[in-house]
């Protein structure tokens, strides 16, 4: 069953007088429970594609369907609700809310979902334990290492029970050991909870862990292989 269906999407950016064709007609289908890496050089369109899949950006043309929701028919508010309930994001720069502790960052998404306080706390504690952050619940992002922050970011992305997690170069700022630990953790969640993971990366380790590798170059898919 398809979690993501993308049909002939195109996206052009205007930077001053320069027009950049970020995506030049992408067709892609990702099944539920997949663990996919989008690889390609910088500027190839990976992040743009990820943003469009996450409803953060809209294509100039083409169709995007995520978990049976077609984006062109949705308002900004609908897209925000979809991101809240169905999509988890992990960013290269962690992007935690700096004034909230680790557990509050994780709880925040559930707060938006309207989960009761006690349940929020219990689920946040459990997921932080799962990602190896026992005893560090009350630390603010500035008091955590890069790897620990990214673990909090992963916990925040999956605590809401999303159908899909979109990770934009999640290991780029981590050392290889920390990065591998994170990948193992996400792989485990993918296996146990059937959460679909799509990474944009040019990290060979991520590519090795992925079960499917989609290579993008100059806004087009140039290779799509399942391992």
């Amino acid at each position, binding site marked *: 069953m398809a979690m993501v269906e993308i049909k002939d999407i195109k996206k052009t950016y205007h930077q001053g007088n320069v027009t950049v064709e970020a995506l030049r007609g992408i067709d892609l289908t990702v099944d539920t429970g997949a663990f996919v890496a989008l690889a390609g050089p910088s500027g190839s369109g990976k992040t743009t594609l990820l943003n469009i899949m996450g409803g953060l950006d809209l294509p100039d043309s083409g169709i995007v369907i995520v978990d049976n929701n077609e984006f062109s028919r949705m308002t900004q508010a609908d897209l925000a609700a979809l*991101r*809240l309930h169905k999509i988890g994001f992990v960013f290269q720069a962690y992007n935690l809310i*700096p004034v909230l502790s680790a557990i509050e960052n994780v709880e925040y998404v559930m707060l938006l979902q309207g989960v009761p306080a006690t349940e929020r706390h219990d689920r946040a504690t459990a997921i932080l334990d799962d990602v190896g952050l026992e005893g560090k619940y009350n630390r603010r992002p500035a008091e955590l290492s890069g790897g620990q922050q990214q673990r909090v970011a992963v916990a925040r992305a999956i605590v809401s029970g999303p159908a899909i997690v979109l990770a934009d170069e999640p290991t780029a700022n981590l050392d290889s050991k920390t990065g591998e630990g994170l990948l193992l953790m996400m792989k485990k969640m993918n296996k146990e909870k059937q959460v679909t993971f799509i990474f944009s990366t040019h990290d060979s380790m991520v590519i090795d862990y992925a079960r499917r590798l989609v290579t993008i170059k100059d806004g087009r898919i140039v290779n799509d292989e399942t391992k």
Partner: protein
Amino acid sequence: MSMELKMAWRNIWRNPRRTGLTISAVAFASLILVFMLSFQFGCYETMINTSVKISTGHLQVQAKGYLEDKKMRQVIRDPDQVATRLDTVKGIDAYTFRANGFALVSSDQRTYGVVVTGIDPLGEAHVSTIQSLVRTGRYLTANDAYAALIGAPLAKNLKVDINDEVTLLGQGRDGSIAAAVLTIKGIFDSGMDAMDRNVIMMDLQGFQDIFSMGKTVHEIIIIADALGDVSRVQQDIRDQLSGKREDTDLAVLDWMDILPGLLQGIQMDLVSGIIMYIILIIVVAFSIFNTFLMAIFERTREFGVMMAIGTRPSRMATLVMIESVCMTLVGIVAGIIIGSLLTLYFQQHGIYIAGTEDILKQYGIPDRLYPRLSLISASAGPLVVFLITFVSSVFPALKIRKLNPVEAMNHV
């Protein structure tokens, strides 16, 4: 504490120096407003009490229409009966009777048209400050039926002094000629030019004889226990006088009816003060506006992330508004507390304005001015600060609603 309130509070203190300065600006504006409004209200109360005690009283009972026409025939027929009713009203400090007539007053050299006011010297001393305003000679006594007090400019114009005689020539209540010779016993200076140039005071009984008034008077002058009680006392007197047939032609007027010029002067002063306060508040509002614009600019990336994880823009705008409210409230509470303490100190000790004591004393005004802290003076200014700073934070909050998550997350 809710998560949003916690986030708002922590966000405020991300830049403690900037927040401290903004809160200080709000606190300072609130402090100034509390103190200055209290000072203005205190001064107004002093002005009103001084003015009413020189001439009008807080309240007057008159025949209906007398205020407009000042016709001799419009009298209170039975002032003693009205007095009996006044004795039952709580909140009255003192009252006295007066009667007024127009007359030509002549000295050896000159003649002027004046208002002759008949006063009860004993009663008047409890109601007005006229006794203390006598600069030369002495105040009237109960035996001074044909003695007079005269304003200093009028005495100068008539070229008369203490114990000189002046001749009155006017018309009595019944149309007869009212004529008498009065001896100047005192010269007063109230500081109110119209009164000092145009009024001669004499004993009420003498006045009633000369002007054929019988036992009638024109005004009952009433001083309430406090300025704040005037409205209630006025209503109580009306209630006492209503329904009695002989009293239905009486009007109960307060100082605002009798001295509309004083009220207008206070209103004008208040308006000019308010303009200054609004300028002060706008300066503070710009400070808040700048703080939040900078905060939003600095946190654009964070807002992008919050949108990415599903936060609605309206929720982020609400968060910023909560931050604004928290910051403003801290400043306002601090300003109200410090401003109130400062006001209470000067309310006890007064503010002495060097070099003015002689002038103030001359007009019956104390040489120290006292601010008057009230619920209105302590809350009105800070409330306006709160509203305007709240409005000034709306624009930055609205900017959040227009953010695009991808552009916001790429913001450096």
